[in-house]
């Protein structure tokens, strides 16, 4: 197993004692695509970030098991973590505008990520960067490699981000809302690209999103989170057989083209879901 999480709990100190953000989440992941879906504050992002130990210092993390490829994350040294982060496991964030270095060219950033893992000359790194840009289907890798992030569109920026994360040839990719800042047409392209790369390289993918139909389209399995818990886990094709009222509510409150509704059903939140 690439990722094993058993009974993960994350708490943050607040004015009224501890706020319990993640409550007993268990997830396992092999070489497959797992989607984590939930609304803001459901704990989906921090659950995934706990794997890389990328939480604010104030967070209190406990778990029965929290392992990446057998390495116990809770007791790993900073040195061990550095060997995982950005090398064996990459993180793709929502908005390339904020997550790329604005004063480095795209090519230089990818080359830097590559040299982090592989020893090689500047020239070899540049070649590798161009090759990676071609792999994320950029038509003119030379031009993009010499461009600064502000000279790129959102979709191009996200491809650069993906190329950079692929540079060290990781085993796991965590994509946190990778396409929320992008147009619908670009969104589909980027997700198809991710799906293709992940299958071809035999990587594990965790795709975090608030968009349930989108995620189930691209993942093998989907975990639905509500208020810090996984309330339901579904195979991608089983979306319509979802049992939990929260999952059903998420699907029903979406306006659709195919089934027009005069009024959108509003989610009635049952306090029992929290129990």
């Amino acid at each position, binding site marked *: 197993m690439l990722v094993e999480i058993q009974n993960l709990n994350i708490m943050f100190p607040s004015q009224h004692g501890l706020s319990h953000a993640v409550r007993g989440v268990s997830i396992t992941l092999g070489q497959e695509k797992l989607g984590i879906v939930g609304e803001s504050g459901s704990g989906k992002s921090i659950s995934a970030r706990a794997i890389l130990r990328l939480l604010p210092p104030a967070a209190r993390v406990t778990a029965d098991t929290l392992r990446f490829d057998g390495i116990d994350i809770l007791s790993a040294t900073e040195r061990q973590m550095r060997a995982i982060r950005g090398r064996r496991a990459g993180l793709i964030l929502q908005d390339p505008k904020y997550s790329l270095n604005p004063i480095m060219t795209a090519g230089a950033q990818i080359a830097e990520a590559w040299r982090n893992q592989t020893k090689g000359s500047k020239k070899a790194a540049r070649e590798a960067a161009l090759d990676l840009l071609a792999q994320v289907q950029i038509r003119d890798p030379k031009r993009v490699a010499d461009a600064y992030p502000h000279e790129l569109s959102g979709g191009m920026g996200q491809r650069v981000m993906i190329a950079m994360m692929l540079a060290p040839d990781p085993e796991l990719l965590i994509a946190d809302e990778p396409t929320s800042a992008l147009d619908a047409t*670009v969104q589909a392209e980027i997700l198809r690209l991710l799906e293709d790369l992940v299958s071809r390289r035999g990587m594990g993918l965790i795709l975090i999103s608030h968009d349930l139909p989108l995620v189930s389209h691209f993942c093998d399995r989907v975990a639905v989170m509500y208020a810090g818990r996984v309330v339901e886990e579904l195979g991608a094709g089983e979306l319509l057989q979802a049992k939990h009222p929260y999952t059903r509510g998420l699907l029903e*409150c979406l306006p659709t083209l195919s089934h*027009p509704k005069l*009024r959108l059903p509003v989610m009635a939140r049952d306090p029992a879901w929290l129990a």
Partner: protein
Amino acid sequence: MISVQDLRVKFGPVEAVRGVTFAVGEGSSFGIVGESGSGKSTVLRALSGLNPDWTGRMTIAGTALTPKRSRDFFRRVQMVFQDPYGSLHPRQTVDRALSEPLLVHGMSDIDRRIRQALSEVALPAAARFRYPHQLSGGQRQRVAIARALMSEPEVLLLDEPTSALDVSVQAEVLNLLADLQDRRKLTYVMVSHNLAVIAHLCPMIGVMQAGEMVEMISAEDLRAGRTQHPHTTDLRRLSAELEEA
């Protein structure tokens, strides 16, 4: 109620909006969809008076719009933005945000109007003395809508009003917008990149690409797939594909 003819907007040498024409009847909704950079928001900003650099002819309720707008225009036409966190003053309470339009337009009975506005957008009375950071995203967008309603406008310009919200909250806000329109006979122009959201609220939809309105289509024709322009067909196919999942 609203008519726009051959609207053109230039940013330096770039023509962002290239001759857009549409009309919206009183109490109806018109939707504009398109990708980033298609010029959809630019149309809305020219209409709202936020961008005085345009040519063409725009009228609202029969009055031709000039680059500089009167105070009365800003009373009758209000705008709601995508991100309520960015459009509310972080250090002003909801009470202050809602009373400002009333003071600007010299309207009386402030206390009653604020109470009424809060109940109209289904916010608890206790929200009145809160700051934006003490509210959830959906509540903040309700405050932004309430603020837009304070001056009793006839037209609301909605720029991606639900894109920053969770789907469950999006449903609530879309229902609220539909109710308000019914009750107050408001005219909406709504911009979004989400076809399903636009088609839910707007019976007529304009599709923009590279500054031009390439197709004008009814929500009904769009749902049935009777699209004319390839760009509309593409957008519809993408949206429908995801629904099948």
